């Protein structure tokens, strides 16, 4: 099943088509397809084990796909991390993956360090840190920060390369309401700048707030796609989340 955004002229920033991934006898993804256009925010939701993170890993070449393809900007997705960075793809990790012993600034500079670090690189890093309210802790070791700030460092590190496709793995997880509001503003700013955003998220209000479209996965298949409002009213989605056919749920 393929769902397509309608905002793109030319090839979409991300195109996933017929993606099938198996682990041994288990089918983790089954014929999954969707697109994300430049400037569009698409949320990938679904119950635990639906295959959301596997989609991310397939996009990043971290799992072997059995069938289907992933295209970035119309080209086959590069298999290596450096190739993806060069193609303008950036991601955050579910476990944050910060270097606790490096400073916040150093954490943010790591994706830029493939070449000699110039003043422009440093300026870009300071700019993104300031934009996320991390300017004052640039010289602090990442391991010493509270969790919400650590999440922002991870986001800053993903943004510093000025990506054209940003993959966010549970960006709102573990955050309070104020931090989620700030995150939503950041995501909207990034998308307004023309970046395609694909996010995996459980937080329904956050998804409703930022996503242009929602793709719902269940047991490795796309079961619904549409605006957040459309998806919320979809009986198949309710069944997937609650385990009973729509209409049978009583308060």
């Amino acid at each position, binding site marked *: 099943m393929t769902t397509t955004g309608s905002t793109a002229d030319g090839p979409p920033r991300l195109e996933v088509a017929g993606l099938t991934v198996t682990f041994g006898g288990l089918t983790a993804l089954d014929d999954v397809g969707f697109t994300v256009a430049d400037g569009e925010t698409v949320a990938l939701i679904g119950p635990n084990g639906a295959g959301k993170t596997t989609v991310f890993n397939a996009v*990043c070449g971290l799992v072997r796909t059995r069938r289907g393809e992933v295209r970035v900007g119309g080209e086959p997705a590069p298999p290596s991390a450096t190739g993806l960075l060069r193609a303008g793809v950036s991601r955050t*990790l579910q476990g944050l*993956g910060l270097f606790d012993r490096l400073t916040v600034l*150093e954490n943010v500079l790591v994706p830029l360090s493939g070449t000699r670090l110039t003043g422009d690189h440093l300026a870009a890093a300071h700019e993104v840190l300031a934009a996320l309210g991390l300017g004052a802790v640039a010289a602090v070791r990442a391991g010493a920060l509270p969790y919400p700030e650590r999440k922002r460092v991870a986001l800053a590190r993903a943004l510093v390369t000025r990506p054209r496709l940003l993959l966010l793995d549970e960006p709102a997880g573990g955050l309070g309401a104020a931090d989620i509001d700030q995150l939503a503003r950041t995501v909207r700013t990034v998308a307004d700048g023309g970046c395609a955003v694909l996010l995996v998220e459980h937080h329904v209000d956050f998804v409703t707030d930022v996503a242009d479209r929602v793709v719902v996965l269940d047991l490795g298949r796309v079961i619904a796609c549409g605006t957040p409002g459309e998806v919320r009213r979809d009986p198949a989605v309710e069944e997937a989340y609650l385990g009973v056919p729509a209409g049978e749920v009583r308060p």
Partner: protein
Amino acid sequence: MERLVFLLSTGLARGAVLALFALSLVIVYRAARAVNFAQAAMAVVPVYVALAVTSAGGSFWLGLAVALAVGALLGAVVERGLLRLVPQETPLPGIIVAVGLVMVLQAGLAMVFGPDHRPVHAPFSQRPFDVGGVSVLSPYDLFVLVVAAVVMGGLALLFSRTSLGLRLRAAAFAPETSRLLGVRVPRMVTLGWMLSSATAALAALLLVPTGLGLDPHAADVLFVNAFAAAVVGGLDSPVGALVAGLAVGVLVTLVTGYASAAAAPLAVLVLLTAVLLVRPHGLFATREARTA
């Protein structure tokens, strides 16, 4: 008092060499999460090459440059051609292969160059300066201290101020995350081995004029003391290697001077045990560094 000043100053110079060698062990531990038990044998190979260059009419400085280059090359060859092929899940296979490498290198050197001590002349006088009737450092000791300080300062700048240093540290702290961020981790591991082996070669080159001369086992005691210093310092802390290296150097020199050379290894063992009893992770290690 004069004797104490002399022993302390000499101990610092010996400690500088120890600190360099301990630093080489720390660099490779950070890069590969492994103690290189072949470091002593690997460090002596470039010294033989340097001595051959110097004997063939080249200057000491040319020999020094060749030793650094050969050390770095040997580090790359050992990592790429040998230890990368060894299973990494547990440390034991790597240790066994490293011990085997020690035997091969030391036997090979003995076959090619002979097992005897070969005298190595220092590029500067080893006669101590006389300061107000007190013997202190020799010109060669000063040279050793300056070289050690320059190399350690250079390595500190490399690790803290350059993009390569940032990649080396990132790859050492979290290889998998680094790979996802575009850092070529296997290349960083190889570079870590090259830096480590070149530093160890330099330490061995600085050591041999102060000892009995060069033989295939010339750096064995240096390795044992430097390993103790590296562990005391925390095994992954360059600052720890520096401080503990200097401390062990001074300790060994004082014990040798006031008691006997035979008591020196015992003193190092006592220091190591005492520190590990109080701080099991070493003086400068952070806890997560050893479990990462």
